[in-house]
């Protein structure tokens, strides 16, 4: 009986563990091994210990690395600025329209990612009303454009990942005990003070989760730069695609993927350290 009970947690872990082993650990092993091979596609890539694949991948693509993080970071920030007020309104002010509004957030997902991104080509095309308005406001020069620039890529990233920001923030706002906000006001805090010292800290886990869910896929994205970008807007995903499918330099593609993964891991760890893993875990003490 006790032996069986001891095995229960392992049994519960097994599906996840097998999944991770089959679809993460093993592919990682092969990718790591491939990243160290040398040779050419026509001759075949031989097992070796070719560390230069990593330095080549890094030195040749510095611009695209920086660009990926800048684009994804900007898109995440804009998404946060849009998502927080929207989630706040849905969770605390929408009343009986709450479900309808939530549905409106999720509805675009019923169409495929690709179609939605291609639709942005029409929205942002050079003679479109949207671009004319931006030109009228002098946000875009008179003879300037939006499509096929970095701005279009950032707009696409923001749009495509916005629901991933809204939903966790909404979930944390929806659970909020509104009597805490009332208590803040009773204690003579202004609305701003109440928001900054009560609401915002309580919803911090939702913000942290939303930022991670938006930023991580956005850094590795390749579709938005491919469809909405122009010359000089390629992200790391586009370089990996080119290395793998066009140049057939499998080792360098694998090495670049590895570097990208480590870079994202580093950024995320620093972020969690700064934003407070305590907030993420819902630990109250770290916040004070």
């Amino acid at each position, binding site marked *: 009986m006790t032996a069986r009970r001891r095995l229960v947690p392992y049994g519960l872990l097994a599906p996840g563990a097998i999944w991770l082993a089959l679809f993460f650990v093993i592919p990682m*092993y092969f990718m790591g091994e491939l990243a160290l091979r040398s040779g050419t*596609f*026509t001759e075949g890539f031989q097992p070796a210990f070719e560390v230069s694949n990593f330095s080549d991948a890094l030195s*040749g693509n510095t611009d695209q690395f920086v660009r990926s993080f800048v684009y994804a970071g900007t898109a995440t920030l804009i998404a946060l600025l849009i998502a927080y007020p929207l989630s706040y309104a849905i969770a605390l002010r929408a009343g009986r329209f709450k479900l309808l509004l939530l549905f409106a957030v999720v509805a675009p997902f019923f169409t495929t990612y690709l179609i939605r991104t291609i639709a942005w080509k029409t929205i942002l095309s050079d003679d479109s009303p949207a671009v004319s308005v931006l030109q009228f406001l002098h946000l875009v020069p008179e003879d300037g*454009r939006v499509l096929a620039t970095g701005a279009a890529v950032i707009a696409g990233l923001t749009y495509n990942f916005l629901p991933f920001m809204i939903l966790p923030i909404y979930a944390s706002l929806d659970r909020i005990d509104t009597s805490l906000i009332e208590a803040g006001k009773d204690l003579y805090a202004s609305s701003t003070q109440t928001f900054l010292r009560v609401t915002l800290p309580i919803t911090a886990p939702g913000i942290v989760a939303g930022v991670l869910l938006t930023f991580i896929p956005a850094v590795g994205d390749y579709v938005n730069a491919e469809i909405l970008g122009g010359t000089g807007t390629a992200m790391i995903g*586009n370089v990996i695609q080119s290395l793998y499918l*066009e140049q057939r330099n499998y080792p360098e593609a694998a090495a670049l993927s590895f570097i990208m993964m480590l870079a994202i891991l580093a950024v995320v760890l620093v972020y969690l350290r700064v934003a407070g893993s305590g907030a993420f875990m819902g630990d109250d003490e770290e916040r004070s």
Partner: protein
Amino acid sequence: MLVALFALVAAVALAACGGGDTVGGGSDNEVETAQPGPVEGEFNISNWVGYIDKGEGSTIEEFEAKYPGTTVNYSEDINDNSDFFGKIQPLLDQGESGGRSMFVVTDWMAKQMNDLGYLQQIDYADVPNVDANLKESLRSPAFDPDRSFSIPWQSGMTGLLVNKRLAPDVTNINDLFDPQYKGKVTVLTEMRDVIPLMMKADGIDPEDATKEDWLEQIDQLQEAVDSGQLRRFTGNDYIQDLTNENVVAVIGWSGDIALVENDDVEFVMPEDGCILWSDNMVIPVGAPNTAAALAWADFVYDPKVQADISDYVRYVSPVEGIEEVNPSLAEDELVNPPEDFTADCSTQPNPPGSAEDVQEVTESFQAVVTQ
């Protein structure tokens, strides 16, 4: 226990994949000849987008009616030679075709696949219509002198697609680099179209070009990217940009003019000539139902069938005798270009030199594209 589980799964997977072997480098498959036989059952073919009419009474339905018991699964899943090759190469390397009996790739890719031992040979006794009706000019291209592994599906010209209202004076490839069109022009991601066209405009014959000539043109392209002159590198998604007038002139493929919904846009033969190419039907190793593949190739080389395909796609037809079936095709200079129209054109070349040289040129070009 968890560790044991990981170890078990890892061991099984490693055994299954056989780590440590060479990756890439072509197959050891024996060269086979595609086998004829009774035509029936499933027939899977992969082709490029917009390369056949798939509607009511289409060529596909006619084929199924001619060979009862045959089901054609026609997929438009090829958008780019390199991209398609990257996806299917691991299968071909194992002697499998992913269920495809036939697919359509451009000349240089057909040669690359054949060099790697990925294609079956074709016996012309099995495709009498091809033997009888293939245009003389296409019978012995340099990459496949006996047409032993490739049969042209359609041929085409790479040149300029120009909005005559917005850019009336674009007649030469170098006109694309005129500052007045800054940010309003695009070129293809297909290196073997773009670089040779640029060479021709600079008076270099692509046939005799050296590796340095290729690299120098790639440098010029880099300058056009740096100055903001080039808006994008595209596949045939330039169709949308031309329709919306986001661009005024592009390097593009002749038949795509049929897909641009803007009456001001025309195909313009560059002053120094175009690039000529064919997309070819090939039968890969491990292809199921090669009998149906051969029957299909033979079927589309019947001038009556080909006339319908040509009327729809507006590329250059590789089949003799379609003008007798549909006289209007004779006047269409995109379908049936007169000799003086294509006099200055060149056959699509490969970069010269060894595999390493080609790789170096390809990498330089891709570095410009993925900037």
